[in-house]
């Protein structure tokens, strides 16, 4: 029993073969009327696009991967923000030490 994927593969192969047939005929017969071949090619292409459009319906695994990535990006941005906060904290501490050093100068 063929799977949905097997059917999609076969439809893709059919559309591809129909286009190849048209192009090969065109090379062999430049200027000839190939509208009959073209009609068949378009029919094959339509059948594949219908199956492909259905096959590309939202995938839960993809949605989950995207949510995980979003969380990851946010975590990385948070790390950068925290890092900047540490720098600010160190600056405050340094100001304090500077002020203390200056105050200590009065007792020199």
């Amino acid at each position, binding site marked *: 029993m063929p799977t949905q994927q097997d059917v999609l593969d076969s439809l893709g192969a059919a559309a591809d073969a129909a286009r*190849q047939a048209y192009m090969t005929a065109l090379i062999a017969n430049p200027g000839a009327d190939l509208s009959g071949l*073209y009609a068949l090619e378009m029919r094959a292409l339509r059948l594949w696009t219908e199956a492909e459009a259905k096959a590309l319906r939202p995938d839960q695994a993809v949605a989950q991967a995207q949510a995980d990535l979003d969380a990851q990006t946010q975590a990385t941005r948070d790390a950068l923000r925290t890092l900047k906060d540490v720098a600010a904290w160190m*600056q405050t501490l340094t100001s304090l030490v500077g002020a203390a050093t200056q105050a200590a100068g009065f007792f020199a």
Partner: protein
Amino acid sequence: MLVKLSPFIAGIAALFLSACASQTLNTGASLAKAGQAAAVQMEDSVTLSDSTLSTFEDALAFNDAFNNATGNGDSKTVLKNLRTIQGGLRQYGNFLDHLASSYASLGDLAGYDAGGTFKNDIESLQTAGQSFASAVGSSFSIPNTASDPIKTVGAVIISDEQAKDVKERSKAIEGNLKAVIAILSDNRVKAKLVPVGAEVTGQIAQAALVLQTSNIYALSSITDEFGSQFGLKSKPDAEDIISRNSRIQAALNAVVARRLNEQINAMSDAYDNGLKALQALIPLHENLQKGEPLDLTTIKSYLDQLQTMMKSAQPPKGK
């Protein structure tokens, strides 16, 4: 506590710690750049841009009209379905876009000069303090024995903290990267994604071939390619000669058809190559987390190949 460290000890400690942190931050920035490039290029290979879809629509209109099939129902349905397919592909494009964003944020984290910012802050503080003291007729000074260790050790502490963050973020992104690779390595996913580009490029190639067989394009560039390695060059009237010689014309048409087919097949190769580039990021994450230098040769090679493939496989943008 910090002010009690002598400048000498602080300097030695700083040299050691800052070397470790600096290597992690540099490799983190390199990994972020390579990861972002790989994700963006893979995104290009699995999505259908508006400009490509527009070129496809033009090609289909041309092919319909050339074959006396303007307005036929099959082509109309194909166009409608292609827009639905473009939307379906977007979910894959989006999550690769989000992977690229993760790498961009890792690059921001690794590239932020926290230590340098801290040092500058201290120097600004001294300058501001001196200006203020001067304005009020007093004096302000942080003795060198106090300010230098604070500047040096403080900057190292912050850089070390930053390097640890980069390693942690790298590990987390590596986990997500593996999930992305698992999805894209699934043959069912590949089978859904690869044919779209090939079919779209195929219709555009077909229009080009129709024009080619109608003598629209110049072919002397091909005859020049054959002859150039032997010092031969096409004559000024080469195009006229080709158009009058059906056998030569048919042979050159075959060359053009072969090249068009090669570009159609390149869509599949681009997918495989993009996947290899993403896979090549895994050992780079591992090296970064172990504190080892990165060898970017493999991923650069995949990215270069991918860039060349995508350039040749996609119609020009900016219509």
